[in-house]
């Protein structure tokens, strides 16, 4: 289960990064803007989907509490977390 979650997270992150780079660095520089004023077009939607995937993906990919936070709590409480 943990491996599946991690794989899904990795896939989401990679896809998110690709969509994000495509929109905000390729489309933006070639067209001078992302989207058209006053309209809903595909480019900004693709970019924001990439943005949302980047937000959620790494949390699933690397989803455990960082070691230094664990150590701080263990040192203060004296119990294993």
């Amino acid at each position, binding site marked *: 289960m943990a491996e599946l979650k991690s794989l899904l997270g990795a896939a989401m992150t990679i896809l998110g990064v690709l969509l994000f780079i495509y929109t905000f660095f390729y489309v933006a520089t070639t067209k001078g803007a992302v989207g058209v004023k006053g309209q809903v077009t595909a480019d900004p939607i693709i970019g924001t989907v990439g943005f*949302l995937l980047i937000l959620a993906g790494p949390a699933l990919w690397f989803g455990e509490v960082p070691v230094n936070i664990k150590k701080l709590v263990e040192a203060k409480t004296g119990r294993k977390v």
Partner: protein
Amino acid sequence: MYVFIVFVIVLAAYFAAYYLYGKRVLEQKVVKADPNRLTPAVEKFDGIDYVPANKYVLYGHHFASIAGAGPIIGPATAMVWGWGLPLLWVLFGNVFIGAVHDYLSMMASVRHGGVSIMSVSENVMGRKARYIFLAYVWFALVLVLAAFNSVASSVFVGTPTAATLSLIYMPLALIFGLLVYRAGLRVSYATVITLILIVLAAAYSLSYPTYLTYEAWVVILTIYSFIAAALPVWYLLQPRDYLNAYLLWAFVGIAVVTSVLTLDLALQGPIMTKFAVSGAVIGALPGTTPAKMDIAYFWPVIPLVIACGALSGFHSVVASGTTSKQLANELDALFVGFGAMLAEGAVASLAVILPIAVAWNFAGLETATGFPVLNALTKAGINTTAIKEIIKLPAADRFTNGYGLAAATAFSRVLGPSPFIDLFLGFKTFAAWALSAFVLTTLDTANRLARFAWKEMFDWLEKRIGQLIKR
């Protein structure tokens, strides 16, 4: 009246409030903060919501969550009474009511195991009061979510370059978190790397706006706030809010430098327009009789208009919600709770009221400084023939244009008049980005707080289900 006088009064009031009132009275005599007492973040650590944080990280989180649009849009709206009355209210309300309220509600939660102020109320008012309070707060948080989603969407439509920057900023905060927590890089190195990337992103975003309709932004930000509120706090909230603290200091720092460089400049705006202004200020529908009548009296309307900048009940929900669950040491609480509220007052007075008062009359500012104010505004899409005073703009635009004009004036005094227009456009985007960063933080914090309130509201059900499973 000159910038100098207002600037000195504001700084003196906040320094005296922090050290003489906050430190000596509230922390040492009222709360009696004890660094050796375990805080809920440590005692009830769960790796998701109860996670101890560095006090500067927590300060950034708390400030960005309580700030939202309140200390910016509120004072900008209140400028219809002139700049003197709103400033007076911000100073008084902020020091003697707002900051005290925020700090004490945080400590009340800390001393009750990190539960919300609604659950703390059970000890004083009983169980029924607690559930009524929880239900009220939950519904109020839904309204907060709707309001802040609307403000952020409007800012993105009004300043599309700020949308690009906000979308790039968030992944950079994640990179910062991964550099520190996963790659084991020192916080100082990671900070420098990320701040450089943010500056580059800011410069890049100025040339590449992101266009979407208001409705599309509302949908996207709703999905964003749902995802962000469900993620562990150490993953997005803490690194982003640590960086938010730098944004805050840059934002306030530019306002302070602007004030210092324009100390001799006279304020263009009136100290007071009149005591009662049009009902439109307090929400009367345009075209109706109340909107045309002067029924919005400064008092008692002002606490509703300038909410977060002076005092806000929402802050106790944040202080006893996400912040109290991350407080690593009781001695950090004054800096986080009391200090963040004073900083919010500083934002309201130095970054909103003062710049708008300086830039009140566009032609007057151009005459006083010799800089191309009218050309700059025209380039930003404002018709200066029809709009001669900043007060004629909507509240959010008063803030972004006022901040941009005041900062561009100050820096052009050092750099010369030629970069004035570029400086104005740059500072205007920066102001819009700062506003949207604070609003987005409040958005997902409010969502997380609504989750806490919902959970506490149904704790009785959780216990019963637990008993049923045991049977």
